[in-house]
């Protein structure tokens, strides 16, 4: 962890150096406005141009983030009076978020056309949510954290109700809105308590204030816990997960693809920054809560996933369980650096794998209802062998088999738990992983099941478009690369972790 010390408040006006630190966010934000305007002039038959423009914006922001990784240097710095970090953690998470958005844009046009939902504002909202996530992973001030969360949440509330004629999609949007606002309120209350007790909104100064020895401040502990509850909602950790299956199932699956990955990645990034760094001196007070939530998530997520018969709901519960595994890394991250590294590795691995799994569902969803029931996958292997093989591979990765990305994610967080002398936590993780193999493989096996003679095909799978197939192939390749080129990514996450809280020198 970086050293925590005082930082005088900057008083000068923001300059070019501040703008450089926000450049990827600015590019996406400008793109968001431009796309809203473009939607007015682009004819409806040419909506795929919008997808192309969105992809260009995201690619540009990605390039800037990669450049920023090198420009920010190992320690990083804060910009705009310590409100936003310009460091390797944010550059790394930005890249993961941007890749997730890019894959979503690749699979969207074909899917939206089939579903008759191809409206221009889809892309604008996608970019708005992306800006929110990028700001969230860079935020070093309570205010920016809250604003970023609201920005991404509001965009996602609209996107989950994007299938305007479908009751389920509407229900998902309302549910997400109500429970999301509730969680935001928790977080805001927590922030208010933290601010009230420390007198600061900037993380570096909060850390400084918290590290002063003194009597335990129960209100501050309460604030920390309430903030955790808010984050736990966003990363859909149990027992704050009740919205997840319904929203994932109800929302159009392209939106679910994006939401299930990018939101979680960004929220975990800020969780790591806030808890493993700013609140590090209160570690003893929050770690047991985080450990408890991690265990509950692993148990509830995996056990509930066992009984599902809907692919989307299964993946939702699996996402809850995966959040539990990542939380292991967060929970021990203060004690052992490997915890944060493991969590970051897991995030990247989870992102590429889960987006791949949902991308397959999106690409295979035809006219009318989304592909959802397990039965819809039966015999997919015999008609779409490559797509089926890719889904099988993603499911194996989610289950944590070696040579896939999922293995090293799990390996590192379990290793971190053992290094922190919390073997029991690792055993909970191991036990629940073994359970998870059952439901992942059950779905995979269905694809290999032959149809009976004369039985109709269970679902009209569309032909795989070039873009959709490319997205699936790219994520499959990514899953394999993260599972084999381990030293590379491990170095990246080690460097990313180095600047967890820039500005605190």
């Amino acid at each position, binding site marked *: 962890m970086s050293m925590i010390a005082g930082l005088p408040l900057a008083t000068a006006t923001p300059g070019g150096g501040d703008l450089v630190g926000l450049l990827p966010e600015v590019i996406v934000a400008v793109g968001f406005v431009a796309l809203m305007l473009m939607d007015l002039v682009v004819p409806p038959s040419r909506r795929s141009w919008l997808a192309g423009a969105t992809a260009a914006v995201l690619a540009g922001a990605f390039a800037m983030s990669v450049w920023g990784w090198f420009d920010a240097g190992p320690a990083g710095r804060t910009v705009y009076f310590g409100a936003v970090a310009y460091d390797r953690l944010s550059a790394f998470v930005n890249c993961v978020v941007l890749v997730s958005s890019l894959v979503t844009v690749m699979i969207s046009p074909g899917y939206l056309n089939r579903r008759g939902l191809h409206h221009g504002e889809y892309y604008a909202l996608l970019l708005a949510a992306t800006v929110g996530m990028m700001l969230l992973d860079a935020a070093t001030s309570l205010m920016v954290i809250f604003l970023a969360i609201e920005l991404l949440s509001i965009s996602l509330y609209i996107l989950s109700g994007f299938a305007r004629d479908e009751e389920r999609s509407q229900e998902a949007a309302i549910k997400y809105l109500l429970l999301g606002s509730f969680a935001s309120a928790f977080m805001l209350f927590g922030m208010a308590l933290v601010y009230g007790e420390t007198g600061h909104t900037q993380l570096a100064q909060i850390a400084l204030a918290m590290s002063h020895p003194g009597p335990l401040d129960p209100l501050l502990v309460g604030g920390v816990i309430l903030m955790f509850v808010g984050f736990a909602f966003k990363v859909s950790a149990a027992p704050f997960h009740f919205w997840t299956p319904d929203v994932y199932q109800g929302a159009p699956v392209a939106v679910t693809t994006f939401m299930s990955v990018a939101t979680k990645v960004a929220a975990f990034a800020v969780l790591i920054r806030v808890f493993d760094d700013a609140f590090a001196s209160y570690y003893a007070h929050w770690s047991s809560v985080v450990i408890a939530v991690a265990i509950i998530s692993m148990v509830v997520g995996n056990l509930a996933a066992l009984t599902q018969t809907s692919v989307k709901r299964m993946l939702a519960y699996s996402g809850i369980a995966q959040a539990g595994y990542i939380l292991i890394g967060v929970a021990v991250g203060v004690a052992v650096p490997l915890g944060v590294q493991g969590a970051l590795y897991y995030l990247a691995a989870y992102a590429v794998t889960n987006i791949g799994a949902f991308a397959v569902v999106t690409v295979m969803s035809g006219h009318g209802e989304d592909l959802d029931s397990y039965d819809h996958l039966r015999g997919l292997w015999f008609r779409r062998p490559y797509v089926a093989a890719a889904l099988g591979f993603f499911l194996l990765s989610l289950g944590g088999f*070696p040579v*896939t990305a999922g293995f090293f994610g799990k390996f590192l967080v379990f290793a971190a738990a*053992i290094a922190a002398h919390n*073997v*029991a936590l690792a055993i909970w993780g*191991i036990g629940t992983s073994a359970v998870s*193999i*059952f439901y992942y*493989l*059950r779905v995979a096996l269905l694809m290999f099941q032959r149809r009976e003679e004369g039985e109709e095909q269970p679902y009209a799978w569309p032909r795989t478009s070039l873009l959709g197939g490319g997205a699936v192939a790219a994520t499959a390749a990514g899953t394999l690369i993260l599972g084999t080129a381990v030293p590379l990514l491990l170095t990246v996450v080690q460097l990313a972790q180095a600047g967890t809280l820039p500005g605190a020198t």
Partner: protein
Amino acid sequence: MGSFPWLTVILLLPAAGAVVLQLIPGRRTDAIKGWTVAVVVAEAVLVGMVVFNVATTPAQGGCPGGPYARCAAIGLLPLPMHLQEQAPWITAIGASYHLGVDGVSAWILALNAGVFLVAALVVPRLTTERLKLFCGLMLLTETATTGVLVSLDLLLFYLFWEGMLIPLYFLLAFYGNENRGRATLKFVIYTVAGSLLMLLAIIYLHFQALNQGVNTFDLETLLQTPLAQQSAVPLPFSSVPTLTPQMWAFLAFAVAFAIKLPMVPFHTWLPDLYESAPAPVLVFFAGVVSKLGAYGFIRFGITLFSHPAHQLQPLLVALAVLGILYGAVMVLSQTDIKRMVAYASVSHMSFIALGIFSLDQNGINGALIQIVNHGIIIVGLFLIADWVEARTGTRDIREMAGMERRTPWLYAMFLVITLAALGLPGTLGFVGELTTMLGAFQYFWLLAVLAGVGVVLASWYMLRLHQGLMHEAPTPRTEKVRDLRLREGLVLAPLAALLIFLGVYPHPIGAVTSQSVPAVVRLADAGQVTAHDVPLSHTSGAQR
């Protein structure tokens, strides 16, 4: 053989072959099968060279004699190895790419190459759907099993051990009879549950070494980093003091290996899977994949955890003997020929386990010989079972009889394999069982007696199987069966010949295994010397 990376070549050759295979158009089934066979033949030739090298050249490292600590002081590695390759892999956590082969792994490596060769030869080219995928997955499995046998880094080993399940899963899930879904799921979950525990133990070993300032997953380094003696720790979430952490770690390894082996009571996945898997998969699954559990015990289990292995020895040998008898009794109660062979396999594999857990030079030598012996036998038996099923349309032994008149060649080959399976002198089975029982006798005489009962039962069920199929008057199903085709005969004949040749002249195996077994036993004995706990049974240790 110089510094050429032979082991990397034999490790990557099948995988590279699988990649090239994808370039062949799917309808050219002859080319697909031809290429697959060419790859496995090349692999077999290379492995043959490696084994020859092991047999003829002195190993690097290895403790020539005397107490291990003295060797470590002068920088000698604990295990004598050939053709070692070492390169950094994930430096941050100290994992390295460390390969090596020795007397323990050499013959299993040869067996591995051999069974994949047989499997490639018996793939039915015309009736296998998506032949290219099948062959590709088979070659990937070969890379994984080879990797398990040559890895000397625990993380690398685990990667291959668990990664093996991916091609196997697709092979078992997609090919095979209608019950395969359930059987595959059962097998994978069993295996993964065991393996995950082992992963936990591997991580634990890593941090144990790290606490002593060594950042490593390397087997040889870990062997030189003796685990600190620790007192019993409470079970998680209870305050009952139970076993030491080392004991837990050993149990985690042992469960993983016992599931693969399989030992009673972890065997329940086996009969279902063997019944539903297609023949070529069965050939290498029963032939070598299950042997990897035994290999793991010898390479990692009893060397890294010599102390817990000695403490648990009474339990382990008891389970092994139970497995021998239970498997044999179960064979006698079956009527399905594939299930009979499957349970016979349980019984035979427990014989191997008994040899290992005698923790004695003879016993482990015998176990290694039995691994080769059983690998050959089980391949032959499953091929015969599969061909009989294809000819008669049933696996029920009650519906078959009297095939001898129409199938003299099958009769002869089956007879040789049957006799080897029941351990007749002059076959390899006799050599293996005798040496194993010598080891068991050293530990506790009653074990050898009970294992002998297992051998008697083996004679009973093997002859029952053979006579049931071959003798007496033919049934309607067997009236018109035809004898082995030339191709089938050419696959079986070398197996039968090998069983007899090695039975008469077992020197090639013994010469290689005896290079390494003393080192293994020495490492295993280290636990006995330092053991200050009271043995669980008076027999433990009393013999030495």
